[in-house]
């Protein structure tokens, strides 16, 4: 069985999140709780259902990962992009509303 983590998108802003060992939804895959056996996966799935029902998150999924030299890496490309963000420099210079005027 591949190792697994629980992921979702936060209801309020849609940002991708992963479940950590304390039961919090965090924005970094690297902080996720890793289920390494069937019982732990079952617990993850139950937690996911409860969080969905509790209207904290949406699009809840258990995904396959591997750990390479201490770094968690989803097996599917889709999940790697979700975890790391767009692979392109999509908003060059953008620093948010409070930042300096951004480049064109």
């Amino acid at each position, binding site marked *: 069985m591949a190792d697994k983590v629980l992921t979702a998108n936060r209801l309020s802003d*849609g940002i991708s999140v992963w479940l950590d060992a304390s039961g919090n939804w965090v924005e970094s895959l690297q902080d996720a709780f890793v289920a390494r056996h069937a019982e732990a996966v079952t617990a993850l799935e139950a937690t996911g259902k409860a969080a969905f029902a509790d*209207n904290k998150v949406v699009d809840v999924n258990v995904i396959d990962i591997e750990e390479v030299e201490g770094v968690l890496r989803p097996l599917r490309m889709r999940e790697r*992009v979700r975890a790391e963000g*767009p692979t392109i420099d999509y908003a060059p210079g953008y620093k948010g509303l409070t930042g300096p005027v*951004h480049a*064109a």
Partner: protein
Amino acid sequence: MYRYDEFDHAFVADRVAQFRDQVTRRLSGELAEDAFKPLRLMNGVYLQLHAYMLRVAIPYGTLNSNQMRMLAHIARKYDRGYGHFTTRQNIQYNWPKLSDTPDILADLASVEMHAIQTSGNCIRNVTADHFAGAAADEAADPRPYAEILRQWSSVHPEFSFLPRKFKIAVTGAERDRAAIQVHDIGLHLKKNDKGEIGFAVYVGGGQGRTPMIAKKIRDFLPEEDLLSYTTAIMRVYNLHGRRDNKYKARIKILVHETGVEQLAGQVEQEFLQLKNTELKLPEADIQAITEYFSPPPLTDRPEGWANLAGWKKADPEFGRWVQQNVQPHKHPDYGMVTVSLKPIGGIPGDASDSQMDAIADLAQEYAFDEIRISHEQNIILPHVALADLEALYRGLVSIGLATANAGLITDIIACPGLDYCALANARSIPLSQEISSRFGDPDRQAEIGELKIKISGCINACGHHHVGHIGLLGVEKKGAELYQITLGGSGDENTSIGEIIGRGFEPEKVTDAIETIVNTYLSLRTDPSEIFLAAYRRVGPQPFKDALYGGNAQEAA
């Protein structure tokens, strides 16, 4: 352009208030996701890989400076400083918070815009020729008819829950710049021998996993019958379109499975019941809508001709931009300007908030406040005096939007792909950036000539790869990206679906493969006037297969 009346304002305001209440109830937990999802989709709010995505309708790709400034404002205030113009002439924001979406919709409503029917199994944003109202080859402006269709189809109770989404495109010129033959309904506005306005009606085109070219079922439909005939088509589709299989639910499948003659017969039968009912368009109503689209006061500006010659001589870069990005206008002293959103190595269709603001300023100063979005993901300023081209060009240079590549190999269409889209299997944007960078040299692009590359990150074909002269389709194979290449597609008046050339290519090998295809074309074209598509149609796939796969028949199969 069309301006909201009191009814429109009240309707959109009510819709914003309704959605605000729905979002509030969702965030409080009163509404569950299953109940809320169809409601948010009806208002253009999707959930993508990293965040929500809001798709805003730009009716037939037409907007004014005030509206463009609002799009910039939304990018700045609620998103990450940019927006993405799409192949459906819309704009998408990739990072809005759900909790902000009611405010965004309220801001949009203040400039007569909304996101209604940008999702769901309904009639979507009606698209049109981006040169409408300005093109020299146009029989009539298609936008009044697109607007009539927009009003008729907005929250149409009978057609809000169709078997599947439904897309209508309208062109008013023989040269089809709206890709009408790959739409559910394509309308070709024309005049008959008596000078009367009517439509050739195409039905059942589309891309996606089953690409099909639309079939013409009417040579000339009088304009007064536009809504009754369209309603007849919709009724036949609504009744007989498949609801058992999402992938076979589009009207193209119905046309294919029923047969075009039988389907056309069903439409005509339905039309007999509807003709001369309240759906008949009164001449006065057509006139009233048409007046909204009256051309701007294009005074003669003959001085532009002499100026232009001098400016071109003084600045070859400017000359190249005029050559590539300015098309003849119906008024000889004016031009139609394509503002390329394809900077070399950039992201196709993306514009920053400051670029959008600057375009709004330039449109106001030099283009009668008119802006269009093309389905090729560029911005169009349809009415610019030749005498103002140099000043406009300087303005575009200052915001990084003066790339002289309209219609060339770096003017690439690309869907958001796996960088954003929840449906995608592979990335589109990085591929387009690499190809653009490889072929970015202006002289090389000019030598290659007209060549349309279109990239989709999944079989849903938002990047129109089926009708690319060179099409790229990203798939996932064994957990990695692989790109299938098609050749010979075209989305114009001679629409064709591209043919798969052979086995797919890994991402790092795609640009080399494109180069091989381009070099093969250059070596076999009769002369530089024979563009890639014409050469491909003349010689067929074999020379390209040979170049890509050598003698390996299995790979080229």
